């Protein structure tokens, strides 16, 4: 112990002194005598050291040691994902700035983007040839988006209020998952193992691609919009006259209308279909009730509507909102004097 060093030490100096902390912690019992005699001989230093001791005791930060099984499980998960990742090669070195290139590469390896808007109730896995392992279920709460990596390395971005479930381990020749809600997929290309997404009556099949699937329960339609590549969309349609499957390529969207029991192809607006990934809330001629549902999901709030408020049934709302606070949108909606609102944490009252 360098006694001179401590002569003018104040409380903070003791707190930050590794030797002092080690001694307090009982890690240096051989220094007990040195410290004790120094403290006896330096009354001013002793007051500071006493304060420092209180501060150090108060700063006992609690941590959590993960279970060995958790570490094992997380390593296995990573190892599976690693197997499908092609490390960047040296030719691509010049453009390996950050993640942009990584994303482009993923898009190239997997060349389709697809968006589906979906109808009706929650769907369960269709019950065929499952592995003995219980399926994994990942969900995003309202007001939340999540990135998930599937066992084959496929990346999934879940939009708010969505659930995706998949087997802990995919079969060699088939990758099947189920989705409720909306998600953007970047599927790892595997020639002999098609990737199939079940969303109720509509099934989307790809070999390797990126795409977005929207299958929220309250909408009546299903839409599949392809940004790049080719995707096959099939629907269970009762009428034999209607086509029940279509192949989509770049810039095309398939719409499944539940009421008409029809599957049609059309162009689509990119902001509307996949803008959500970049924080854009997009509303197109949305009536009052569906606007409220979308806001609840996007912001993770509960919106209570006073029963005396009678919304105009012909009212429609359109707009694209990039990272805007909820109050901003409500102010646009209420203009000029349609209703008033109050926000208390995650509860919104409209009257």
């Amino acid at each position, binding site marked *: 112990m360098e006694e001179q060093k401590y002569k003018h030490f104040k*409380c903070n100096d003791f707190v*930050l002194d590794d030797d002092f902390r080690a001694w307090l912690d009982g890690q240096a019992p051989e220094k007990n005598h040195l410290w004790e005699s120094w403290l006896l001989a330096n009354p001013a230093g*002793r007051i500071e050291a006493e304060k420092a001791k*209180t501060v150090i005791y108060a*700063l006992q*930060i609690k*941590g959590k040691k993960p279970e060995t099984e958790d570490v094992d499980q997380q*390593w296995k998960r990573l190892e599976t*994902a690693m197997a499908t990742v092609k490390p*960047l090669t040296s030719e691509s070195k010049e453009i390996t700035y950050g993640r942009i290139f990584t994303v482009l590469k993923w898009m190239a390896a997997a060349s389709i983007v697809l968006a589906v808007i979906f109808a009706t109730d929650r769907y369960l896995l269709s019950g065929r040839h499952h592995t003995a392992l219980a399926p994994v279920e990942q969900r995003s709460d309202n007001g939340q988006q999540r990135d998930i990596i599937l066992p084959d390395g496929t990346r999934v971005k879940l939009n708010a209020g969505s659930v995706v479930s998949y087997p802990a381990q995919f079969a060699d020749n088939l990758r099947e998952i189920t989705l409720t809600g909306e998600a953007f997929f970047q599927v790892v290309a595997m020639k002999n193992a098609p990737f199939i997404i079940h969303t109720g009556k509509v099934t989307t099949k790809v070999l390797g691609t990126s795409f977005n699937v929207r299958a929220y329960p309250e909408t009546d339609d299903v839409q599949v919009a392809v940004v790049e590549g080719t995707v096959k969309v099939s629907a269970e349609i009762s009428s034999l006259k209607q086509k029940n499957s279509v192949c989509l390529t770049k810039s095309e969207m398939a719409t499944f209308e539940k009421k008409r029991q029809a599957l049609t192809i059309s162009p689509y607006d990119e902001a509307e279909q996949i803008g959500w990934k970049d924080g854009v809330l997009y509303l197109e001629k949305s009536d009052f009730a569906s606007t409220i549902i979308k806001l609840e999901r996007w912001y993770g709030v509960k919106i209570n509507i006073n029963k005396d408020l009678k919304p105009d049934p012909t009212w429609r709302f359109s707009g694209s909102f990039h990272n805007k606070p909820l109050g901003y949108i409500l102010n646009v909606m209420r203009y000029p004097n349609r209703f008033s609102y109050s926000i208390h944490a995650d509860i919104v009252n409209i009257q």
Partner: protein
Amino acid sequence: MGNEVILPDEHSENLKTGVFKGDPLWDSLKEGSNSAFEKIFRLYYPALLNYGLRFHKDEEEIKDCIQILFLNIWERKQFLAASESVKSYLLASLRRLILKRKKQEPSFVELDSDGSDTDKEYSGFNIELSVEVKIIQDQTLRENISILQNAIQNLPDRQKEALYLKFYNEQSFGDIAVVMSISTRAVYKLIYKALDALNRELAPQTKNVPFVISIFLSLLFSTPPELTAKAGPLASLLE
């Protein structure tokens, strides 16, 4: 210590970071070693998970972030820069990833304060404090500790984060600077500001009940207050 900022003791800083220089595991990873990658993952996973949970209570979200972080490293392993401190590099990368994803989440926290958004990049750093109060016999010390712990919880998030990295992770000022992407001087400022605030809580002028009692007692026994103050600490230091 007032607000004066003391520059780091060069010698001890170098000794600490020197441990990591040219980490052989990191070098093997760059050469493509799977087993080195696994060792790195297993070695740093606990610290990464613990740190991540300070930003976000959702454990699954943090685990996803750690997966994405390591997968990105594996993809780019050939081009990894030599890292002086693998731990700081990983913590810094995880921090960026978590904050980026937090920012993408539509946030409604800012709404209830009239849309006046505070530090947007930063929304909370939660630390849990523990002390085995039972083993501390001294009543005054126990009360002071709980006053301080209360004060620690009320410190600004960035100060709490710096304290966490310093006293829980036991990282050097230079490493903390890397993790938080600020200068070493800024780390000193954060930590000294936090410690000064805690010092003020311990100052006798503040409503320190045990101290008032000790004055009262010392008046009773007509002993100068200073003497009691000195006798007390010594006794408990030597406990």
